[in-house]
């Protein structure tokens, strides 16, 4: 075996290094009072290093094509590392509480990220599946991290059960594809894949497996309970990073391996997108628990993300990556606020807790408003740009069906605006006798919110962010 091949997987190699360093750090500082502070700074610094390194490496393939990275994938890796960094920073107040387990949390976080990196840059179904599992299993541990809370364990149980089941379905699909084409490498599959029933079956099963990770509609049942049960930072992580990684993977595999079958998976996508966006929006309207609410909101956002893949066009990858980036900052801003409110409010996350929030905490509620506007796609915030680009990508092939799907998605933006405005209304307009007391945010929250808000404000108006992504995407 040629060990120098490992050097071609530089982002992954650095992540493993980071993992080891955090482990050593945790081990050495086990008795120290300052363990938390040191570990969090160490982990954050390591992630920054990973991000910087990833921007500078040229993508290569290794191990005979089983590992195949590309410029677009590397951009996505940087974005996900950035998102994970935000999660890490905003998790501060919560990590403080679970003092003894800080090290474990950072290790789990980094190892799921490692799994996602592998999944994204896989060149064959084998490595892809390996990466997927590496990403899923630590996530279940993270969901169950609040050991004193029953619903945390319940969420984790649901997550792991559905994950196992969908992995099984996906393996089934992959074996069909293997049977039909005789290979597991994406490029080879693309050469021989046809519209035969066996391939269609394989594609469908495979699709449903990833649909679970992205929580698209027929595969979304775990989402609400898991999001509600998980500790808030983990919910944030699930909703943006895990979803973004799975989305880009699905996008590349559909385009690379199933490129010739585009007319089959296009219809699959149309149905799934319309269902995801519409149903999730309708459910979201009725939620009064903010984390459940965000769960349904994230399902509908997943529908918008997949809109970029429709039509297999060249704008797709860039639009998707950009959407994920903007979605990360907006959604993480919301979760950061939820998290800090939860910790100053005895664990309440229902919407009524936010009544009159503006009177007592004007800054936080203003930032929350910006984030919600961005999620709803209101300019001049970044969300509007990313939505518009996704719609552009969706109709780029001029397929009349695509126009109809985009139209349905557009109508749904109005519905989503309605429920996002409900929160804004609670914060600004609804009067209450017992608003939340004024509190000071900790430093972690402040930094995370500053990063997110800068992203929300600038990623849209400053066009070079999109151009950077688009340059890699082509």
């Amino acid at each position: 075996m040629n060990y120098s091949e490992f050097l071609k997987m530089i982002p992954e190699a650095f992540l493993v290094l980071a993992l080891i360093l955090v482990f050593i750090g945790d081990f050495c500082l086990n008795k120290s009072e300052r363990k938390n502070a040191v570990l969090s700074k160490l982990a954050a610094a390591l992630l920054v290093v990973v991000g910087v390194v990833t921007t500078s490496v040229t993508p290569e393939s290794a191990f005979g094509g089983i590992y195949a990275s590309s410029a677009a994938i590397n951009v996505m890796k940087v974005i996900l590392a950035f998102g994970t960094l935000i999660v890490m920073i905003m998790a501060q107040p919560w990590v403080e509480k679970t003092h003894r387990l800080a090290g474990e949390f950072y290790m789990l976080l980094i190892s799921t990220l490692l799994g996602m990196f592998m999944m994204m840059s896989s060149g064959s179904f084998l490595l892809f599946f390996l990466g997927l599992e590496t990403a899923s299993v630590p996530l279940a541990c993270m969901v169950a991290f609040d050991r004193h809370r029953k619903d945390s364990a319940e969420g984790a149980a649901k997550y792991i059960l559905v994950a196992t089941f969908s992995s099984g379905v996906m393996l089934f699909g992959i074996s069909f594809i293997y049977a039909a084409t005789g290979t597991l490498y994406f490029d080879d599959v693309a050469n021989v894949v046809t519209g035969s029933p066996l391939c269609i079956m394989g594609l469908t099963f495979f699709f449903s497996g990833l649909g679970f990770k992205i929580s698209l509609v027929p595969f979304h049942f775990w989402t609400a309970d898991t999001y509600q049960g998980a500790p808030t930072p983990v919910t944030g992580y699930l909703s943006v990073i895990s979803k973004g990684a799975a989305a880009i993977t699905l996008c590349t595999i559909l385009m690379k391996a199933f490129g010739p079958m585009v007319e089959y998976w296009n219809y699959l996508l149309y149905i799934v997108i319309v269902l995801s966006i519409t149903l999730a929006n309708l459910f979201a309207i009725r939620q009064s628990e903010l984390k459940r609410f965000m769960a349904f909101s994230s399902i509908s956002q997943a529908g918008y993300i997949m809109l970029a893949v429709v039509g297999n066009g060249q704008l797709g990858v860039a639009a998707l990556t950009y959407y994920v980036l903007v979605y990360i900052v907006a959604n993480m801003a919301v979760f950061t606020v939820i998290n800090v409110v939860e910790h100053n409010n005895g664990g309440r996350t229902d919407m009524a807790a936010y009544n009159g929030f503006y009177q007592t905490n004007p800054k936080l509620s203003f930032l929350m408003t910006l984030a919600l506007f961005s999620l709803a796609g209101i300019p001049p915030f970044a969300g509007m740009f990313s939505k518009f680009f996704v719609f552009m990508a969706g109709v780029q092939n001029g397929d009349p069906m695509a126009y109809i799907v985009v139209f349905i998605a557009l109508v749904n933006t109005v519905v989503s605006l309605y429920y996002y405005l409900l929160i804004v209304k609670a914060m600004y307009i609804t009067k209450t006798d017992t608003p939340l007391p004024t509190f000071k945010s900790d430093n972690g929250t402040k930094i995370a919110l500053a990063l997110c808000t800068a992203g929300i404000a600038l990623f849209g108006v400053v066009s070079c962010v999109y151009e950077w992504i688009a340059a890699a995407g082509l």
Partner: protein
Amino acid sequence: MLLGLWLSKSLNQVRGVMVTGASCLLALSIWLTIYFIQERAAGNTAEMLLTYSTPWFKPLNIAYSVGVDGISVVMLLLSSIIVFTGTFASWQLKPLTKEYFLWFTLLSTGVFGFFISTDLFTMFMFYEVALIPMYLLIGVWGSGRKEYSAMKLTLMLMGGSALLILGLLGIYYFNGLYSGEYTFELTTIAANHVIPGHIQNIFFPFIFIGFGVLGALFPFHTWSPDGHASAPTAVSMLHAGVLMKLGGYGCFRVAMYLLPEAAQDLSWIFLILTTISVVYGALSACVQTDLKYINAYSSVSHCGLVLFALLMMSQTAVTGAVLQMLSHGLMTALFFALIGMIYGRTHTRDIRELAGLMKIMPFLAVGYVIAGLANLGLPGFSGFIAEMTIFVGSFGAHPMSGDPNASFRMVATIIACMSIVVTAVYILRVVGKILYGEVENKHFLELTDATWDERVAVICLIFCVAGLGSFPFWVSDIISPAAGTILESIGVM
């Protein structure tokens, strides 16, 4: 030409900054108008003046490009007048003053940006920027059923913009497909003029209705009365005065300019709808008892007239439409300002409870009479000029020269003309009821007349209304050539 952007400087300060900002804005628009007239006089016949364009999202062919022609110049002038007076009208607004002006400024930034953009994407972005602050402005500082109205208004307008996105994407891709040049640039798309008729017919309704929602096109006008009634004074002024004009401007500049064949094919449907808005709006205003509702329905009627005239597609009618936008903008702003001031004192807007205001607050009452007379189209005020031009233009739009639609247009014009009579009915009814007669509520006798800041706003608006009515030609000379150029490109002239 960073008119839209520089206003954002005055974000975090309060009254002083707001007045300075608004005055600068006004001065700048006046300068712009004068400059524009000079350029035209000097024989510069380019379609757009003061153009500036810079690529924004290169891979998607999106550019930030701005420029003005005659129509946008007068719209900018109108907007800056309304912003200026609106600032004074909300002088005494109490809770959360800073936030109020912040959103107010964002709203006006959107409006200015919209009028100067010549790139579809930029235009659309500013359009949405102008919409969303409304939710908070009405929801937080409004009165009455404010939460309901704010939500209804926002959702209906965003629904309109959802239609709009689809229409814009359609234009972008089909223009690119047939001309090989993918661009969002308005003038380029119009010059290419390659989108086939049947495809235009698909996308025209999306864009026209999308903008029409904001222009209070029947049956999409229902947000407007509720919204206006609940909004705080200055927001009503800006909204009825300027935002509703965005709809008319967009219909003309995007829908008709870029999809000319469809505009001619489908104009009959929309002519029927606009005729209904004109008459229905006027009739509804007759039966309302809330001052703001009366005025809101009157706005529906007048804005319907704008769309009506645009669809007639003759130079005179289109000039009249723009004049009507101007005149209606000023009048409605005046009306809402006065209503706001009266409401601020009496705490009721129900005309059954108000009477004899002439004795109590003569200044406001006289202002109200003037606004009313201008609204019903008395010669000497702007309303007369605008409506006259519209009806002359649309009646003679297509003489008997073989146009099968001529008689249809005539009938529509006659029906729309009837709204003038109805307007007179509701205006005079209100004026008679609230201003004259015995003061029923003794408590009202203690109320005071207008303060200085309110007088500034009112006098300024009356001055503009009368000025436009007495000297309309310098304005119509700016508008008319621009309208002519666009109509030529549509191919009806």
